[in-house]
């Protein structure tokens, strides 16, 4: 018997395990069916551990200069070498993981949740509200990200939090679009009518009855957003519009010195780029595998 007030909400675990088995069985099943996704998950975990426990992993301080060892090639003391200021590249990359983690997750979560609420509300109310919200989304979508970022930085100043604002704003409409189209289908389902007939308020119907049913595509999008936000942060920092020195950030490490010393000290440019690529790679692989595992249409027959 279906409980009207508590609609059945499929989650990632259900879709993977396909039966109410334990989480562990679901995860093992996922790993077996999605080898690439497992690689992605592993990369994400490595990055998360590095970011969370940077103090214990990094052998040196990310900001201390040692002018005796400037632009040193990789060695046992400095496994990724040092930059032009004598800073240990490995330590900076480990601490950069923290910056990327903070920016990636805050942008994805804030942008995603805002997009989720706007998208579902737009579909639920329909009519004029939908029309106006969608036009606003159109404007934000069409507006060049880089100009938005330049303006945000010029108005509020640079720094991690303003970078997050600049990257989050363009993520909102993209999320709202996808959520709206899934929510439009759900709006026509009888249990929404039933909830309305019960006299529930708009907020309750949206939050309890519609949002849980669009969570699957939403969570997949969220993983993709983390990767995109990390990439955007790297680009902005590289242009000098993002995180500022001496904070360790991967994009920042590629700015200035990396190009100047490209031929004499290529390790300065190579390692941060690999860090960005592997991390975003991990999030994308994982997100893809999640989508394939959840979407029965794409499953191999």
């Amino acid at each position, binding site marked *: 018997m279906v409980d009207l007030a508590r609609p059945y909400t499929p989650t990632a675990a259900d879709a993977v395990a396909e039966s109410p088995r334990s989480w562990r069985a679901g995860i093992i099943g996922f790993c077996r069916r999605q080898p*690439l996704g497992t690689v992605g998950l592993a990369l994400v975990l490595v990055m998360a551990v590095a970011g969370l426990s940077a103090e214990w992993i990094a052998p040196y301080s990310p900001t201390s200069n040692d002018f005796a060892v400037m632009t040193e090639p990789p060695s046992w003391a400095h496994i990724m070498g040092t930059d032009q200021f004598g800073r240990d590249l490995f330590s900076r990359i480990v601490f950069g993981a923290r910056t990327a983690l903070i920016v990636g997750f805050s942008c994805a979560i804030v942008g995603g949740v805002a997009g989720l609420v706007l998208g579902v509300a737009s579909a639920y109310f329909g009519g004029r509200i939908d029309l106006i919200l969608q036009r606003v989304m*159109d404007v934000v979508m*069409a*507006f060049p990200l880089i*100009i938005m970022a330049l303006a945000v930085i010029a108005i509020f100043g640079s720094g991690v939090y303003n970078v997050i604002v600049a990257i989050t704003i363009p993520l909102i409409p993209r999320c709202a679009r996808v959520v709206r189209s899934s929510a439009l289908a759900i709006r026509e389902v009888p249990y929404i009518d039933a909830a309305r007939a019960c006299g529930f308020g708009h907020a309750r119907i949206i939050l309890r009855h519609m949002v849980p049913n669009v969570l699957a595509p939403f969570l997949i999008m969220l993983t993709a957003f983390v*990767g995109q936000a990390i990439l955007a942060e790297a*680009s902005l920092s590289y242009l000098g519009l993002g995180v500022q020195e001496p904070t360790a950030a991967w994009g920042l490490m590629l700015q200035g010195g990396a190009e100047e010393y490209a031929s004499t000290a290529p390790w300065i440019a190579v390692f941060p780029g690999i860090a*960005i690529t*592997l991390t975003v790679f991990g999030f994308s692989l994982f997100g893809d595998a999640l989508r394939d595992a959840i979407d029965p249409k794409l499953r191999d027959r």
Partner: protein
Amino acid sequence: MYRYIVNRVLLVVPTLVGAAALVFVLMRLIPGDICMVRLGSGGTSVDPRALAVCHAELGLDRPLVLQFLDFAWGFFRLDFGISMWSGKPVAEEIAARLPISLEIAVMATVVAILIAIPLGTISALWQNSWIDHVVRTVAIAGIATPSFWLGIVSIMVVLDVSHALFGAAWMPPIDYVPFWQDPLRNLSMVILPALTVGYRYSAVTMRMTRSAMLEVLREDYIRTARAKGLAERLIINRHALKNALLPVVTLIGIEFAFLIGGLVVTEQVFNLNGVGRLFVLAVQNQDYTLTQALVMLTVAVFVFANLVVDLLYGWLDPRIRYG
């Protein structure tokens, strides 16, 4: 059908007006203005009288509403006015830098289509085989790799290889020469940026082609075509690919519009004097007219790319009949 087209075209108007308002407000929210940038070099205090003269000269002393209407009316007539920084017409400033950016964008698109559609199709046809895994890994790597880093690395490789082969390091030329004047020099300058941008672009397109093909290949009409014994090649070319290309075309259109914004970073890496560079410069100098024109140009490209894509749908897929 006609009603749909008219409605769809009319929807362009609020987007353009909204973007115009947004850039207008954003630029004026930035502390200071172009006169401060011009007169206050070195952080010395600015003479208020000189500031007033400068404001009057550029029309910045007029009410904001009038300034906005002026800008909107100018955009409507495609007259962008005069750059506040250089004093030259905005159209001239943009026209001088547009060819290189446009050339990179178009070449990147060609690279992307040539790589993406065949590989995406192959990957879908042999889903979960080793070739599918390789193609998908290459595609995801393309999305994960920052194009500016790819640019830096490709320059490093070119430097090292040319040094090893010819004894002298070779660098791509920096000053732009039109293709018809010196094709070789032009291509040697544009090829690296086009490849680095195109790789990312192709990765996105490849993924879309693959998933669209996967969905189409499971349609009933494909089974019917197979059942009546149609050659596999014909099934793929005529039935599957044609329908799968629909979302791919959308993506190519939208990504092309995004390319212009993405060029800011690429031009920085390759030290090219294109529209992306002009963008950063215009905002930094607080050149209102130039920034507004550039933003409106990008937004217009985006909006019209979307419009064309939506209208193309009806042509590519006869099932869609707009009510």
